[in-house]
């Protein structure tokens, strides 16, 4: 056991002096996630909050045919803007993106309205353009409510209650808690954490084979009276330590970043206090052994540090796969799913953020399943380390 400790201590000291490792383990991994997240949240905040507050400018052709409607739109925070000369010009303007939408009111509008014939209004818009889609949806909503108001007035005039137009009263009761809503968005967090953990151990995992070989320090190392198993174990454990470090830093940096994000405005109250940070750390920790051994395994097949980096970068994406599939299928946590590494961590973390009670059986299966997979891969690495061809 002593050689494992010796190798472990040397790797830790060595890598704490390595700027490349420090940069990726202590800076890149932990900060990449939070910064990207803050950016995305801010963008969606701006979009969803801006929508209701900002007045919408809508060019209308033939405004003079519907003065009441114009008045109505203005009272609904929609400004009537200067419009293109005619319908053809409007089509062109929307097509090339000059306007998001143009409303055309035909000359016959007032006449038709007065005669109780359905009065035609044309809305020209490009629905493939998401920005335009949102704006035209807002304009449509205003037009529809104007439509309903007139209908109600006509019914009143004929002595009929407008209530008969509402045979159903649909009442949607939203049971999602504010933390639950945030879980939707915060669900992608688990990948950031796994990513950060993997980045933290990447250089060490590569160094165990490709790095040592390239530096020429592998052969003298193998001449020592130490079994190769002990060498590789020491190296994998050192990688685990850096992964754990990177993981804890990324959890803490998220905790800090979330404090500065106005998530309440999105109807979310993230449950990401220090206790959740600590629990999340413990739930994700078993993943480090699996990640470290997987990266070591992949790197051991490569010829150089550069080549190893390329392949190991692909490993960085591997944990997304189960998470992505699970998000598409919208799976609920179950005991069987807890056997799948990365997915089980993701589901447990999401539950934690949603402030749901922790299912101890799930935790047990996730922890032991992931550790088992990591243990098996570590043994595979050891077996590969015993090959004669290791020296290349």
């Amino acid at each position, binding site marked *: 056991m002593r050689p494992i400790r010796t190798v472990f201590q040397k790797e830790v000291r060595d890598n704490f002096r390595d700027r490349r490792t420090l940069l990726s383990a202590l800076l890149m991994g932990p900060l990449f996630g939070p910064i990207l997240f803050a950016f995305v949240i801010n963008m969606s905040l701006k979009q969803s909050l801006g929508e209701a507050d900002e007045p919408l400018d809508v060019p209308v052709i033939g405004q003079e045919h519907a003065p009441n409607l114009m008045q109505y739109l203005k009272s609904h925070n929609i400004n009537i803007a200067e419009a293109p000369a005619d319908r053809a010009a409007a089509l062109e303007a929307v097509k090339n993106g000059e306007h998001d939408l143009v409303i055309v009111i035909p000359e016959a509008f007032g006449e038709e309205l007065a005669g109780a014939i359905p009065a035609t209004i044309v809305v020209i818009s490009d629905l493939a353009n998401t920005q335009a889609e949102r704006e035209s949806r807002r304009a449509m909503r205003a037009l529809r409510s104007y439509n309903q108001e007139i209908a109600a007035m006509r019914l009143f005039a004929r002595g009929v209650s407008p209530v008969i137009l509402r045979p159903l009263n649909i009442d949607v009761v939203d049971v999602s808690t504010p933390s639950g809503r945030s879980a939707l968005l915060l669900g992608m967090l688990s990948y950031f954490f796994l990513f950060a953990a993997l980045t933290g151990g990447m250089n060490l995992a590569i160094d165990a084979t490709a790095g040592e070989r390239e530096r020429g320090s592998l052969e003298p190392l193998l001449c020592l*009276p130490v079994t190769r198993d002990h060498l590789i174990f020491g190296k994998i454990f050192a990688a685990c330590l850096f992964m754990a470090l990177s993981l804890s830093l990324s959890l803490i940096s998220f905790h800090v970043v979330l404090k500065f994000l106005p998530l309440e405005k999105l109807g979310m109250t993230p449950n990401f206090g220090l206790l959740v940070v600590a629990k999340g750390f413990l739930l994700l920790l078993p993943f480090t052994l699996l990640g470290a051994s997987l990266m070591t395994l992949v790197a051991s097949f490569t010829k150089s540090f550069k080549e190893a980096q390329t392949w190991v970068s692909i490993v960085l994406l591997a944990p997304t796969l189960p998470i992505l599939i699970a998000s598409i299928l919208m799976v609920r946590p179950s005991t069987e799913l807890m056997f799948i590494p990365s997915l089980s961590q993701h589901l447990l973390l999401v539950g934690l953020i949603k402030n749901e009670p922790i299912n101890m059986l799930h935790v047990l299966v996730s922890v032991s399943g992931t550790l088992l997979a990591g243990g098996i891969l570590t043994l595979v690495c050891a077996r590969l380390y015993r090959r004669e061809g290791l020296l290349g």
Partner: protein
Amino acid sequence: MISVKGLHKYFGEVKAVDGISFDAQDGRITGLLGPNGAGKSTTLRVLYTVLKPDSGSATIDGVDVVGQDLDARRRIGTLPHAAGLYPHLTARENIAYYAALYGMPPERAETRVEQLITELDLVDFADRRTKGFSQGQRTKVALARALVHEPQNVILDEPSNGLDVMATRSLRDSIRQLKAAGKCILFSSHVMQEVGHLCDEIVIIAEGKVAIHDSADGIRRQTGCDDLEDAFVKAITSIDTGS
């Protein structure tokens, strides 16, 4: 003492080592001499146990390199062809890391590292990180690292490669000191003069076989050439032509 008997090592179709036998005695410097690709490095790699022979055997102080490889490794100090250091560690830390892996108790390791730093003249750069060391400095540190557990047998694979004159001289001095201390030294080289200068015994290898095993004078006598280089060429061509 290092003893090699009928060693064979193949890489696919290539017979890298094809029946090599020789002994390297304590208190003597034995040189493996041969052109590139003759099988010198492969032989040494089998001896320091990173390769397994296909047939034949080799022992270090009577310890089999295949069956008891851990024990055999404990008895050798090795300076392989590629003897890279850890650039973020100082020279002293590089040596101490190996001392720890040899299982030396910390106090003894510390004294021994200090002793080697003085003996091999590493004092000036012992506490600098090895990144940016010259080839000479690096070889010295690697040699110190190989000797840290005071092995009875020392194997060096082309140790003077890439060294300048002064560094080569100091390496030779170190090797002579090891001989004076009664160690068994086995090293490979393709440089004639070096082997002629230093070795008590020369084993000339070509195409995976031993062409001649004798002292420098003995080789001159056997081949009838006064010049060692001519003798070398004659010895290896006799293998090529099969005579």
